């Protein structure tokens, strides 16, 4: 009895001294909490992380928040100085704010010490998920999940002879993967209201969500390809004539046309999960969505097993781009378990773990995994994924990103869904809103 008590005292003393010096010895086990969005890849990560738990002796908890609430909840958590998350797989656009306000731990020294090189990861993901300021070697995250907007289509419908014949007659070309956005819209219009297997189906499910970031993540796929630029390439934060150029206006008009001619009725507030629902329940021929859903499409009995095909966002008059999604994994500066959290990142950055990450349904950004021979054939969507990752562009990652995103949501939704004003009005208004934000920020 007595010895037990003494042991307890000794243990408590050790604990106290360890925490007093702030140094957590590697042998001591911590309870780490990893925060991310609630989606399929997160469930896969839980499985993957069991290996880390076994190796390190640390235990892992997870806090997953669905996409529409993810930014709200997690930025609230960071700004309220909470200690909920030790590791945060935060969205790419948050990096500026989190870096400037010291909410993420800067990882350069750690990378140098552990021999982790950012050259081993896809350049676009390093810029998108890890760097702040952009294009400087200051890292606040390790690319964790590579993601990009792409398209899924009902291959089984596309391949039906009667549908192919009718399409050829109408448009003078074969029905297949569209080479341009224009062609995509024609295919959407072709399927709109068509009777297939006794059900009325529609053209395409696209992003139209108002409340968080949905319609912005959708419309940019049209805007980029028609020639929209966030700013003057020579003159940072100079927006006039780039955000609201004639080409950008044409892009926005295209997205409205796509919305009006090709989407199911009532798809006025749709984001990732609504589009999945529409596609899986057999309502639409094509679906715009982030690549993370592709393993799920393959696994579903209604859409998997060769019934679906995949293609990268088609080109527009100004080129071929796709909206970047995906996240890097960061250590939260406020965490009490920073050392254990870094251990996790070290474990996660190993090539075997990254390979396994791909195998369980994750999307690593490590070149060694993506460029390995046989990668393209490892999954039906593997090649489309690589092609898409090669053409990515991202939204602002400024510390004021939310102040930039909200007016874009409002202006675009107002024009595309509510049908108010013209595309020019919407983008002129956006320039005005963004100018105001940059003036407040003292950047203009």
């Amino acid at each position, binding site marked *: 009895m007595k010895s037990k008590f003494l042991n307890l005292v000794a243990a408590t003393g050790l604990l106290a001294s360890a925490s007093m010096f702030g140094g957590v010895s590697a042998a001591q086990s911590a309870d780490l909490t990893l925060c991310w969005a609630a989606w399929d890849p997160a469930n896969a990560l839980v499985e993957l992380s069991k290996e880390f738990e076994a190796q390190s002796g640390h235990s892992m908890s997870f806090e997953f928040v669905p996409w*529409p609430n993810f*930014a*709200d909840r997690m*930025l*609230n958590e*960071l*700004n309220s100085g909470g200690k909920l998350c030790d590791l945060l797989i935060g969205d790419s656009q948050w990096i500026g*704010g989190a870096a*400037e*306000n*010291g909410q993420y731990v800067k990882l350069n020294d750690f990378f140098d010490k552990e021999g982790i090189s950012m050259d081993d990861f896809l350049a676009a993901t390093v810029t998108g998920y890890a760097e702040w300021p952009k294009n400087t070697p200051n890292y606040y995250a390790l690319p964790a999940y590579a993601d990009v907007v792409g398209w899924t289509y009902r291959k089984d419908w596309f391949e039906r002879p009667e549908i192919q014949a009718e399409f050829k007659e109408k448009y003078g070309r074969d029905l297949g993967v569209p080479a341009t956005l224009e062609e995509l819209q024609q295919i959407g219009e072709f399927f709109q209201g068509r009777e297939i297997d006794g059900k*009325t189906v529609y053209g395409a499910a696209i992003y139209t*969500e*108002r*409340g*968080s970031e949905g319609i912005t993540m959708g419309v940019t796929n049209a805007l980029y390809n028609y020639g929209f630029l966030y700013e003057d390439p020579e003159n940072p934060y100079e927006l006039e004539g780039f955000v609201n150029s004639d080409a950008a206006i044409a892009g926005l008009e295209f997205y409205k046309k796509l919305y009006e001619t090709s989407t*199911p*009725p*009532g*798809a*006025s*507030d749709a984001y990732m999960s609504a589009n999945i*629902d529409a596609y899986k*329940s057999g*309502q639409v021929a094509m679906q715009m969505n982030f690549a993370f859903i592709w393993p799920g499409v393959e696994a579903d009995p209604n859409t998997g097993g060769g019934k679906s095909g995949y293609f990268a966002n088609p080109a527009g008059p100004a080129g071929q781009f796709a909206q970047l999604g995906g996240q890097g994994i960061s250590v939260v500066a406020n965490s009490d378990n920073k050392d254990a959290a870094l251990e996790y990142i070290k474990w996660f950055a190993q090539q075997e773990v990254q390979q396994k990450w791909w195998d369980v349904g994750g999307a690593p950004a490590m070149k060694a995994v993506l460029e390995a021979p046989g990668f393209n054939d490892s999954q039906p969507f593997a090649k489309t994924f690589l092609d898409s990752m090669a053409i990515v562009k991202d939204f602002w990652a400024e*510390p*004021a990103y*939310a*102040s930039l995103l*909200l007016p874009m949501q*409002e202006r675009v*939704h*107002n*024009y595309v*869904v*509510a*049908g*108010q004003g013209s595309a020019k009005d919407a983008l002129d208004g956006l320039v005005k809103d963004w100018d105001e934000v940059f003036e407040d920020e003292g950047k203009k």
Partner: protein
Amino acid sequence: MDNVADKVASATPPSIAHRVKGLSDRAIAWIFVAPTIFILLAINIFPLIWTVYLSFTNYAVNRPNREVKFIGLRNYERILGDADTWATMQATAHFLIWTIVLQVLIGFTLAYLINKKFKGNDLWTTIIVFPMMLSPAVVGNFWTFLYQPQIGLFNYVISFVTGADPSSFSMIGDIALAPWAIVIVDTWMWTPFVMLICLAGLRSIPDSIYEAAECDRASKWRQFWTITIPMVLPFLMLAVLFRGIENFKMFDLVVQLTGGGPGNLTTLTSIDLKREAFEKWRTGFASAYAVILFVTVFGLASIYVKALNRVKQR
């Protein structure tokens, strides 16, 4: 009611008052009231003063490193000069007015019918009350599902009644319908509230008044307009006051239903305020916005209460 303590004092003979042991009444009164006042000061008044202070600054929660500057009335000027603010006020007014009109009409009718005291009216009244007691966020979220044109129940019920194709309209997506979509759900939830208050009003009318009117050969129609309506009016006005304040504050139900869309059509002031305060994190600006809302609610409510008192005195 206000001088109960006096009554106790005067009703209690001095000799008895003398024999009361323990703490003095004054001490007990303070011990009993102080914690409540303290908590309300700490959680309500202190924050309010802080909000007023912040509203004159450029403070932003997510910019701990930025210098906090006094910018005078700049935040107020920007809010009141912004067309978007007025758009949200308009959306709020549309929501407020129509929910009140519909709830008063339906609620009063229901109360009038229930007051016919048919068999089982208690049971059905309780059932009608259910929606009002439930969590607006949870129920509002489910209504997005009910409103979904292809898979939701609402459009199919409407199409069953009217014959229109269920996929031909979208309550949340159409700009003409979205402002009504939120009115419908709020009316579904809160009509029972107005109904209960009207019912209390109807039951407070003594039968003798109707009997006297009957003796005077007043028609039922006349009785309704000269007895029922005037006697229920103070109750009805109270119901309108409560609904007005509640719906001015409306957030949970609508944010779950439409997220403020399409465009800005259902962005009520509370939703707009939430975006400024907790998404853009413009704390100073949002504080000014909050102050404007306080002043509006208190201003409108106190004018209304004056009118209510006048009606009551009649």
